[in-house]
């Protein structure tokens, strides 16, 4: 066993939060080195390192966020993502009605009757939601995780006929970020969590439908709302960001603080898009200063030994 192997495994274990490291790192290192000795390994296996990275990230999320907030934010993101996916599938990918839209499929392009293989991503989203709804949480998470490489494949191979008319990268990225938020909780594990999933999806569908009808009705290139609508109209991150901020505000007023915190977590993907928009419109300096000040404040508070605690008033 080499000192370098031990050092590299220790470096990988450093990804875990301090509390976990204190409790488990030495025992884990012993197991890692036992495994290396038994298999004659002289450097860490990539799969083992990736596994440590994934569980360290999970542990950091668990440490930073209470289970109640994680499960609720997961239900919100899963419900919103599923609603977006179903609407996208019906109104854009499939659009089984006669369409007057000039973006009607050219010959040889698309995936069967669908516009592109974005259908696969949307189908996986819908399937994962249904699996979560019936309590098959593990299967649901695997299916949802599969949307991430599927989206990446669409972006990488967009010269192929099946991906030529794919959803824009921004829509796929927004769904991917919502999938990551959904994956960090387990709402499917309890009957109450599954009820949250249903309510969130119904609420999100109700919220998106007026927007879809409005978007379709204001198309200038065609003569009716039954044409394929534009991708950006359904997945506009700022639209969903405003909705989730609204949920956070209403929940805070109603003193449902866990839901309020969960909605703020689910709004993070929209905030990232907002930041990108700010950068693109010349606000990079403002954003950099804001991030710099926030980082400096966090570092200052941590280094000074203080901890900021949110506590209910007596």
């Amino acid at each position, binding site marked *: 066993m080499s000192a370098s192997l031990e050092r590299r495994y220790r470096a990988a274990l450093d990804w875990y939060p301090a509390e976990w490291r204190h409790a488990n790192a*030495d*025992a884990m*290192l*012993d*197991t890692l*080195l036992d*495994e290396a000795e038994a298999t004659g390994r002289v450097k860490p296996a990539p799969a*083992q390192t990736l596994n*440590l990275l994934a569980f360290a990230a*999970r542990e950091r999320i668990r440490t930073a966020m209470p289970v109640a907030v994680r499960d609720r934010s997961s239900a919100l993101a899963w419900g919103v993502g599923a609603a977006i996916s179903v609407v996208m599938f019906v109104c854009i990918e499939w659009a089984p009605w006669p369409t007057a839209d000039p973006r009607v499929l050219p010959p040889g392009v698309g995936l069967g009757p669908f516009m592109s293989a974005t259908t696969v991503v949307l189908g996986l989203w819908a399937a994962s939601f249904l699996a979560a709804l019936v309590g098959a949480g593990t299967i649901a998470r695997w299916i949802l995780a599969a949307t991430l490489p599927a989206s990446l494949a669409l972006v990488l191979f967009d010269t192929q006929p099946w991906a030529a008319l794919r959803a824009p990268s921004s829509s796929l990225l927004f769904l991917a970020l919502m999938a990551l938020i959904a994956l960090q909780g387990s709402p499917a594990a309890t009957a109450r969590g599954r009820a949250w999933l249903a309510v969130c999806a119904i609420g999100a569908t109700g919220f998106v439908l007026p927007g879809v009808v409005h978007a379709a009705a204001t198309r200038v290139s065609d003569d009716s709302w039954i044409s394929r609508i534009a991708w950006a109209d359904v997945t506009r991150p700022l639209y969903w960001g405003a909705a989730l901020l609204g949920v956070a505000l209403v929940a805070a007023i109603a003193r449902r603080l866990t839901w309020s915190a969960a909605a703020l977590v689910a709004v993070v993907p929209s905030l990232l898009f907002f930041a990108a928009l700010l950068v693109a419109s010349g606000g990079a300096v403002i954003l950099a200063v804001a991030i710099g000040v926030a980082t400096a404040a966090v570092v200052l508070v941590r280094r000074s030994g203080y901890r900021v605690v949110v506590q209910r008033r007596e």
Partner: protein
Amino acid sequence: MTTTEMREPTFLVLAALADGRKHGYALIAEAAELSDGRVQLKVGTLYAALDRLGEQNLVEGAGEEIVGGRLRRYYRLTNAGAARLEQEAARLASNAANARAKLRGRSAGTVASA
């Protein structure tokens, strides 16, 4: 209260502890042997499972020792863990028996129709 289905790695960790206390790598080796080499637990997965099983009071620490300058920690099954393992083993055995009964019915039907 209904008990949710147990995932295979969890089942194998509990089964590996059924005959006495074991340390981390012994658990990985035993889980591989029990599954005929199909399940190779990664260390991150194993310790996350042990942490969760500890929270559920199904597994507990069973001492530590220093071996070759390294900390070796042992785990053992609690009584609740043994009961849960027994319950899951019974559920799997029942499923397997039902499947075999169906298969016997199928072969009898095939013979009759031939």
